[in-house]
């Protein structure tokens, strides 16, 4: 944190606020990663209401079966009396759940009802109230790092996502493609000079330094890979690299994972969605492993733009819905719980008779987490998420 800035603020702030700022954990070592599942993942398969007969009736081909009390360790894992974790996730995430470092927030999402992937993703990434005049170039993670003052943000993606666009300079880097620079230092310097006075100048300098930093941190692993050492694939590989880089270099990060738009043959305990969930779970477990001691001060939040239809569609898949289920995990998370408001799921409690209602707004939820992690409260919180009071679910 920028010490001078905080001392300056302290001089004009009442004592109560002053102490709450200092009560926040040390920001530089407090790590936050947002994982965005693009495509609207079917949360009712990942965290399934297996005790609910309406669920079983309306998903004849794709429901997740209730945990088998006679075969613990096989199939879905009971989270509480109502909810169970998908078998493909139980494999990798059971240890983290049991260590009480993982919580789920069902009925989470936003109030955008367009059921459009792209509209809703944008809404979430902007983090600004619907209906008002939105600044379409200002994402909420960008505003967060602006309020934090000092931070090391990064998007692990090919493009800078909307959530990180805005006033503060945030780099992006594709973890799958980190290599040694093709340019020598003289060329690098001349190129930077060529961009002097151009609006792209900060991006160019940032790009050079982030690449060098990331390459240095990953060099050993990548050299091993180049020698043909077997390594993880897909998201698991990406997550390992993200873990390594977050442990050493970055503290506010974003990564997105696609492939969740399961309109057809999504499968149940096995099948397409099970594979995607399995890869996600293994990736998150690998990330916690790779972060080492830094995991203790890390919070990961997994979100998606919307949930899917409660009922199975005509092709053993699900169509676009509304409420989702978010995940909060990390070494400093008070997990092992299903958090936030819930309602019993019945035909009459479904949103528009079709999908889950949203009872925990994503802005309130994330705002609550940011206030705890980074002491971003009051007016500063309101600048990150305008007109959304932080919701403290006591998860961090």
């Amino acid at each position, binding site marked *: 944190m920028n010490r001078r800035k905080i001392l300056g603020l302290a001089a004009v702030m009442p004592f109560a606020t002053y102490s709450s700022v200092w009560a926040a954990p040390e920001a530089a070592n407090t790590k936050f990663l947002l994982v965005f599942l*693009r*495509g609207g993942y079917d949360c009712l398969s990942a965290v399934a209401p297996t005790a609910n007969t309406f669920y079983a009736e309306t998903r004849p081909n794709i429901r997740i079966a209730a945990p088998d009390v006679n075969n613990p360790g096989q199939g879905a894992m009971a989270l509480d009396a109502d909810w169970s974790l998908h078998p493909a996730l139980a494999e990798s995430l059971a240890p983290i759940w049991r260590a009480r470092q993982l919580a789920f927030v069902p009925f989470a999402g936003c109030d955008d009802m*367009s*059921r*459009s*992937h*792209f*509209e809703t993703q944008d809404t979430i990434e902007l983090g600004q109230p619907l209906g008002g005049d939105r600044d379409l*170039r200002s994402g909420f993670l960008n505003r967060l790092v602006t309020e934090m003052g000092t931070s090391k943000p990064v*998007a692990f*993606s*090919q*493009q*800078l996502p909307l959530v990180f*666009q805005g006033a503060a300079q945030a*780099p*992006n*880097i*594709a973890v799958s*493609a980190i*290599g040694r*620079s*093709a*340019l020598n230092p003289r*060329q690098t310097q*001349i*190129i930077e*000079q*060529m*961009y*002097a*006075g*151009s609006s*792209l100048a900060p*991006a*160019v300098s*940032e*790009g*050079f330094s*982030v*690449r060098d930093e990331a390459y240095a941190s990953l060099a050993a692993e990548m050299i091993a890979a180049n020698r043909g050492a077997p390594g993880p694939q897909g998201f698991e590989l990406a997550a390992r690299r993200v873990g390594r880089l977050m442990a050493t270099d970055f503290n506010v990060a974003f990564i997105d994972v*696609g*492939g969740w*738009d399961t*309109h*057809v043959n999504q499968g149940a305990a096995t099948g397409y969605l099970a594979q995607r969930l399995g890869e996600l779970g293994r990736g998150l477990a690998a990330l916690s492993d790779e972060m080492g001691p830094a995991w203790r001060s890390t919070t990961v939040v997994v979100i998606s733009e919307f949930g899917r239809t409660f009922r199975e*569609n*005509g*092709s053993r*898949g699900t*169509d*676009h819905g509304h409420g989702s289920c978010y995940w909060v995990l990390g070494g400093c998370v008070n997990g092992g719980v299903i958090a936030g408001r819930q309602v019993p799921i019945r035909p009459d409690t479904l949103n*528009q008779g*079709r999908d889950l209602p949203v009872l925990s707004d994503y802005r309130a939820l994330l705002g609550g987490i940011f206030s705890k992690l980074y002491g971003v409260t009051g007016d500063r919180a309101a600048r990150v998420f305008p007109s959304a009071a932080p919701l403290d679910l006591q998860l961090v």
Partner: protein
Amino acid sequence: MLGENWPWARFAETKWAALWAWFDRSVRGYRAKPRDRAIPALAWEIPNFLGHKKVDLDVHFDRRPRARAARVTARAKMKVHIGFFCVALLAAAPAAARVQTQIELSAHDYALLSRITWGASESDARELKRLGPAAWLDHQLHPGASDRLPRDAQDQINALTLLSEPLPDLVRHERQQAQARNAITDPTQRAAADAAYQQSLNDVVNQARTRAILRDLYASDQLREQMVWFWMNHFNVFQYKDDVRLLIGDFEERAIRPHALGRFRDLLEATLRHPAMLRYLDNAQNAAGHINENYARELMELHTVGVNGGYTQADVQALAHILTGVGIDENPNPPALRPGLQSQLIRDGLFEFNPTRHDFGAQTFLGVTIASGGYDQVRRALDMLARRPATAHFISQQLAMYFMGGAPAGDVVEHMAATFERTDGDIARVLATLFNSREFTASLDRGVVKDPMHYAISAVRLAYNDRVVRNTAPVQNWLTRMGEGLYNHDTPDGYPLSSTAWLGPGQLDIRFEIASALGGGSAGLFHTTAGDEPAFPNLRNSLFYTAIEPTLRQPTQAGLAQATSQQDWNVFFLCSPDFMMR
């Protein structure tokens, strides 16, 4: 001038590499003093000399007076070598470069050329000059039936045999291979068969990508090629869903390309009837009693009226019902139908409208009752969607975004939408409204940041003009690394059209890497099974001197002046902020 049949031309093609290596070594031998930067620059300026058809090498020496004095001695020493080299070059000239006269383009014409094409090339600059900008633009908007390509490029496309097989045959062939694979029980053999099957799918899509890139690089009808990319992106399908790799080349060729500058309504129905779209957005699965609303939603949200186009969830569901039965049938024999339904069956290649899968019920769609019926319900819905003012506005806005790199200022979109409505969606005329607008002219003066496609293709076009690359794989890889791989966007929205999406630090870093490979001549674009032909990117060509150099920013000029070799100069030029703009 010496003809292409002249034996030395052949000599030049085959011996070019050896000749160049000799010359390069000879010249490098004189590079005694590191501060003398002119000599290596000369080394790579020989192709320029061809481009200008000037035997006076001093033309280029004189462009950089600051270093001139230092060169005099070295120049004298080089005379013998240059003399011999020039003789050889005369032979190489017909094959290695088109012998041309100087091109003089105004700044405005150069900007127009860069915007309407995938990037300015010397040949297209000459064509614009020959016809004049107005006639040239008119020709681009109304090209003939087929593109003119250099013979080399057309020969390469003709050799892509997987693309000439009729799609139903290709798909049946692959299906047989897949079934044979399922019968294998031995795990090792099964894995080998799986890999071979995947490879055969990849071979088909690789050929489609090669064709697309060759056309983008060399087709004379550049605007059509840009529009093919635009519509492929607008009606995006993703190669890795199911067997879309088999279908996507045909989608581009038969659904998109014939209508790229035609009528929107025709284009819309062509995409609806193509198996690539029906597979990708799951409508092949949508049947009466088994509703799948994926395509119905995206058809409105992304293809026609846009997300704010005034439809509701009920409209999505109504359209899904209307679209039931619109699907794919790989069976060469028509399905057995009840006699009453026979007349409702439509088959066209792999496309099939199967009345037994269709919900014939009347639907209320966008406030209108669509009477009970078969495929005529689909046609009616497409008519309604194509003629909604929201569609005219949304398509116009997307076109303006694409050609102007961001949300357009002023009322240009309204004017385009008015043309769209007046002409029943005549795409060329909507574009003409855009290109004739004040806003477009202003944006030519301002410039637009290139997306990865424009960056990669414009670099190769400027560097090699009509000299046809032997290998498009490097371009394919660059596009993928920059995040805009062909056929590689997994969600139906397509790649972003706004420039701001392509300005992240990671993006620029990868561009610099590409600049290094391309500028250094080591990109592999002329790699063949017989070995590598020399690459020699010729970025400092007549177009550079007449149209580009006078507009360079001062820091860019200062950077270029620090180049220690032609390769180095190329890298700086391709990395410069100026070359990031179109």
